[in-house]
């Protein structure tokens, strides 16, 4: 396939008839810097270790209730050099923000400042026990309090719960507070309204909390249909969960009107704060009538995503919901001392709905997020939102003439730009386009979300990309889009240049192999 294809695109590297790389095969299976790496279980040994510890004294008395392990665990060890090499080789098969542009919509993959890492590792934060006597951890409690104060001021909300461990845990915290508030009034409302464009966690959370979930339709312009929502409100509706800016990348202009209507009907307003990066330092959700909102510290406040967590999801509350916040929380005394309120029956505690996690939350994320906030300050955070929105609009306007952009006429987008797969030729799909972008050296955007747009592609550039980086992305995106519109079938087998070709996900699910086992 060396001739230019229908779209006129020609791969720079030769690709053979069967879609495989040409070039000599290597004895090792490696390709220069791309090194294949076996599993630890295939290279380690049960008697190898990378930690020097005293040998076991078999004659030493034990007090283990006769339950001493008699069978091998089945683990293997590697020495330190082997371990470091194993993981270094694995790391090179990963894409990360440090490597390149990562426009994953709704995920806010921004640069993770290294000062944050350094601060989190100070022994005064990293090496303290959650149940240490409180007189010995005043600085840590102060950090939690300070961060909470920043979050309240940035959102214009009076109160914050710091313990939720991630965004979805924060959602749960907010919904449980709503349910507790209704229950306290003896008001057994059954329904939570969620827009169709919501993250999957919203309906899952509401259902978990025992609510029936009903969809709110969207208007043609990509916003909540206010008339339909108002129609549905009533004495059975506990509240709404609305993401703002929404997952179509738009600001919900009528949010205040929605909130007032929900309040008038006796419900509460949960705002999914996943997209707070678009408005941080510029708009305070408290001014829009929000009762509860979680904040993903790993999105807006740049704590690292770590390949899938840990996250952190503090929740800010209105006066109405604040008393129901979970334990434990930090209080500052008039004398300037900090202490943890841990006891449900204590006089410092309101009608809390209880405890969500063993300890006080993601301290390691708190130190990083506070470091980040102090670095930016109120002025810098406002600039963060503005640059994030500017970058997204730049991408939207750079692609709208070539890609289906369903909401391009609905006003400026916020921090992400949404496209659909209309008019792709040759049976090509959004997935094919995403995989072709991998070959161009980019992490793909979010695909097939939100569900309201066919073949959705959600691009969130964030504020930490330069104009040059966006220009290169737009050029590449335009080129793969042209190929898709022309029905370039070679895209169906992309990526060609990644550490792996397309992986068979169907086979993985049909016959799950979820742990290594010794070859028979």
């Amino acid at each position, binding site marked *: 396939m060396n001739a230019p294809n229908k779209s006129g695109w020609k791969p720079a590297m030769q690709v053979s008839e069967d879609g495989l790389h040409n070039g000599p095969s290597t004895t090792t299976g490696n390709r220069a810097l791309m090194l294949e790496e076996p599993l630890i279980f295939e290279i380690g040994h049960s008697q190898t*270790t990378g*930690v020097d510890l005293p040998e*076991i004294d078999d004659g030493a008395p034990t*007090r283990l209730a006769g339950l001493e392990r008699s069978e091998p665990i089945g*683990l293997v060890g590697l020495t330190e050099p082997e371990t470091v090499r194993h993981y270094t080789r694995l790391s090179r098969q990963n894409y990360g923000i440090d490597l390149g542009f990562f426009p994953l919509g709704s995920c806010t993959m921004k640069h*993770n400042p290294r000062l944050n890492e350094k601060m989190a590792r100070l022994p005064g934060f990293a090496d303290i026990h*959650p149940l240490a006597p409180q007189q010995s951890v005043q600085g840590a409690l102060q950090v939690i309090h300070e961060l909470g104060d920043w979050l309240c001021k940035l959102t214009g909300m009076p109160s914050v719960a710091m313990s939720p461990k991630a965004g979805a845990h924060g959602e749960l915290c907010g919904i449980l507070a709503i349910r507790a508030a209704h229950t306290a009034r003896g008001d057994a409302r059954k329904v939570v309204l969620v827009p169709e464009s919501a993250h999957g*966690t919203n309906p899952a959370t509401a259902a978990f909390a025992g609510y029936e979930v009903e969809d709110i339709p969207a208007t043609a312009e990509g916003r909540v249909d206010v008339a339909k929502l108002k129609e549905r409100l009533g004495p059975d509706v506990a509240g709404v969960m609305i993401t703002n800016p929404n997952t179509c990348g738009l600001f919900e202009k009528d949010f205040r009107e929605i909130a007032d209507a929900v309040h008038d009907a006796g419900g509460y307003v949960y705002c999914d704060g996943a997209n707070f990066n678009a408005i941080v330092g510029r708009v305070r959700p408290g001014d829009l009538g929000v009762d509860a909102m979680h904040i993903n510290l790993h999105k807006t406040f740049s704590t690292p995503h770590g390949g899938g967590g840990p996250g952190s999801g503090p929740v800010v509350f209105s006066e109405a919901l604040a008393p129901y916040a979970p334990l434990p929380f930090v209080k500052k005394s008039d004398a300037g001392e900090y202490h943890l309120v841990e006891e449900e029956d204590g006089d410092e505690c309101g009608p809390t709905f209880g405890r969500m996690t063993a300890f006080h939350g993601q301290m390691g994320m708190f130190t990083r997020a506070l470091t980040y906030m102090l670095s930016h300050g109120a002025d810098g955070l406002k600039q963060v939102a503005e640059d994030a929105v500017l970058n997204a609009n730049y991408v939207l306007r750079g692609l709208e003439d070539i890609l289906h952009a369903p909401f391009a006429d609905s006003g400026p987008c916020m921090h992400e730009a949404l496209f659909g797969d209309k008019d792709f030729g040759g049976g090509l799909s959004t997935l094919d386009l995403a995989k072709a972008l991998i070959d161009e050296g980019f992490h793909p955007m979010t695909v097939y979300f939100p569900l309201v747009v066919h073949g959705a592609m959600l691009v969130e550039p964030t504020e930490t990309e330069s104009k040059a980086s966006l220009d290169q992305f737009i050029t590449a995106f335009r080129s793969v889009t042209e190929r898709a519109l022309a029905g370039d079938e070679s895209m169906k087998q992309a990526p060609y240049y990644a550490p792996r070709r397309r992986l068979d996900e169907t086979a993985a699910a049909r016959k799950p192999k*979820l742990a290594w086992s010794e070859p028979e």
Partner: protein
Amino acid sequence: MRYLPLTDTDRADMLAKIGASSIDDLFVDVPAVAQLDGPIHDLPMHASEMAVERHMKSRAGKNLAAGDAPFFLGAGAYRHHVPASVDTVIQRGEFLTAYTPYQPEIAQGTLQMLFEFQTQVARLYGCAVANASLYDGSTACWEAVAMATRLTRRKRAVLSGALHPHYAQVVKTMAQFTGDDIADAQPAIQTEPDLEGLISRIDEETACVVVQYPDILGRISDLSKVAEAAHAKGALLVAVNTEPVALGAIKSPGELGADIVVGEGQSIGVGLQFGGPYLGLFAVRDPKHVRQMPGRLCGETTDAEGKRGFVLTLSTREQHIRREKATSNICTNSGLCALAFSVHMTLLGEKGIRELAAENHRLACLTADRLERVPGVTLLNNAFFNEFTVMLDGKPAREVVRDLADRGVLGGVSLGRLYPGVQALENALLVAVTETTTEEDIDRLATELHDVLAAAQAKEPAQ
């Protein structure tokens, strides 16, 4: 600003291309009521790296780090030595700044690591399958109860009194909303856990019985008796482990018949971090139960060229596909902590984890013997791994802990703090010992504890 690459010229050029006259044009959909006149008031402006570092260090400096004092705290979080190479690996940007591996062709590093991690956890727990981690041990404990209710279609969970009280509280908090019925209890101050009492609470309505191993008082009991009793009534045994190092010395919960094994993985690789982020471990003994598991799972497959590779799999259980019908609302896992765990466990290996466990136990025995010689101190446990309970004469343990801290010793966790208001427990002190504990630390604890108790007794001669 050092994190923002756009220049003012860039911004002007870009606004012109977009067709906006100013940045405010892009925020035109924000209603007037929420428009601000400038940066949010009452917050500081931007600061240099040096200034921020000074600010954060002033906070860190007010804390007494575990490494700077004789340290004996446990109760669900343990201080272990983490080899230097663990942090080196997790700070590689390719791991640190990656996202959830939804594009597997460019996330094989994270995925292969998760597959190795799942295998390590499953083997340590004596189970068939482990997931890619949950938030922490306490939330994993709730997820296990929820899974057991799905599997058995029963609504009642029986919690052992010796389950970590915070774990029990998390379960009870969640159950308020799901309508599950949670039967809990408080620990009885006894040398042996009350297994018969626990077994007598299991009936035909019971979905699962939840037992901590070793338990909150540090005691170790033969779970197989509870497993038999639970299975006889059609219930499942959920075993909770908060100290994975113990499983280098004692039989795994799976081996003893537990059906779902969950726990806190923080001991291996993660560090104390004032309570988080930690690492929820979750495994099942019977591979048939995998489709009811919560959380992400990584599985093996092949790519289009036939090469082995890994993907997230069975995601039809998860919220982004199933929405309100998902097995859990959880989206994220604790990926980087799972990496830290896996690197540390790879360094340890079979030999290392067993030696580490033996060393923990040896030092704990030494500490128990030494403390027993302090007047007013009685050892409760017959058996323990690296944590045990002592009863103190003459003064509530909560106050003793504060007095010890004033003397520069972090002497343990008082049960009074874990069970506020429960008088029977207020003189009990939990003491944890790990390989980081030195013999000097042990002597120091014994000496200071002696002085604190003696001072208390001198104040109250009537006792």
